[in-house]
């Protein structure tokens, strides 16, 4: 079961990353695309809790940092997505009840993830972009992530429930 779990998570992350890099730029708004990798981590957190989501978030972030065409300092998305996994996992017991709460969690996590990434960039001076540009991108990212949530999250949460029904929390 463990290999199935690793395989399932790997496939989910790979598909999300490739869609995000190669397919969604065709529908991008000012270059902003839905952060599918982040959505996979949020979905995993809601099903499996903070501990699993943090580890998955770290791996997902490292992939985002290293897969082409990424060029920023490696570790920045790792930190951002890991924080997202932690927060989403901690609020998970309270949001499972309704779809509205799930969407709110996604919006909050998207805001948090992109902001942490942008802040680490400001600290490291890796690209020097202004705060107004950052805010525009963060807002765009939140809107886009919320828009694709109804399509993506049910799939992701279903997948993680399937992979390990005995450890997922019953609804």
């Amino acid at each position, binding site marked *: 079961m463990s290999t199935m779990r690793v395989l399932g998570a790997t496939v989910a992350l790979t598909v999300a990353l490739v869609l995000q890099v*190669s*397919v969604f730029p065709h529908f991008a708004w000012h270059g902003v695309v839905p952060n599918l990798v982040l959505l996979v981590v949020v979905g995993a957190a809601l099903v499996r809790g903070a501990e699993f989501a943090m580890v998955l978030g770290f791996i997902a972030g490292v992939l985002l940092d290293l897969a082409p065409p990424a*060029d920023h300092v490696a570790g920045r998305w*790792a930190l951002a997505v890991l924080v997202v996994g932690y927060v989403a996992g901690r609020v998970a017991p309270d949001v499972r009840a309704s779809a509205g709460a799930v969407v709110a969690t996604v919006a909050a996590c998207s805001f948090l993830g992109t902001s942490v990434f942008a802040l680490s960039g400001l600290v490291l001076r890796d690209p020097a972009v202004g705060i107004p*540009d950052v805010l525009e991108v963060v807002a765009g990212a939140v809107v886009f992530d919320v828009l694709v949530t109804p399509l993506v999250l049910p799939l992701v949460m279903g997948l993680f429930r399937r992979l390990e029904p005995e450890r997922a929390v019953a609804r």
Partner: protein
Amino acid sequence: MASQKTPSRGLVVALVLASASLMTLDATTDDGSAVDPVRQAVGEVFGPIEAGTTAVVRPISGVPEWFRGRDSMRDEIDDLEAENAELRAKVRTSGFDRNRLAEYDGLTAAAEDLGYALVPARVIGLGPSQSFSATVTIDAGSRAGLHPDMTVLNNDGLVGRILRVTRTTATVLLIVDADSTVGGRVGETMDLGFLSGQGETSDDAGLDLRLVDQSVVPARDATVVTWGSDGDAPYVAGVPIGRVAEVYSSLRDSSQRAAIEPFVDFAALDLVGVVVPSGSESDRAVIEADGSLGR
């Protein structure tokens, strides 16, 4: 609720420290970062997947283009041949070239620099704005004869330069990236300057031009071309970059800043050419300076 245990403090600290050390490792070593081999390895794996995905998606995303292109290799070569001829014509007729020939009159080597050999490639991945950097992946790598610090252009003008390559893909830093600086000159007056990106890839993408001679005011609509680097790396000379859209004067330090509108539409980047030395080894047909196809 058994599985919903809060993560142990040790795990949290370990993962945060891992991220932080990764950043330190990558940010502090200037050239040849310790993370580069890992980046390379991940690129080797994801490059072909991205290329495959784009190949599947292209017929759908490119439906409007279908009517003229049909995505066949033959059409692609025809397009690039035309592109190459057009580029050379553009370079020859520009004010830059006329001035340069006048300056170097008698130096017969001058004209040779204007011939490029191009390796054709297509964009297979774009970095999201959320990463605040303007980079793309193209489907040609070291097997096609590419290596870092090569000029990338398309039929409109300068696109960027190659940052790193895997066997089948290469990562390109676009000139509009906030970290990118290109040496440019105003074609009509030969004034030198530096163009830096603003980090925006959409339709209103722009570049800032600061001239070395701060008393010169560039004319509106003047064409800016690359100035060329030593040994043609990372940028070859004479590639059109953009036109002067607006000029701002700062009274305080009496300097000029010009906003440049790039010729390339970075929001719709697809077919590009990478400048390689004539006669390079490649896994695909190389377009030589005279328009012929080489291997």
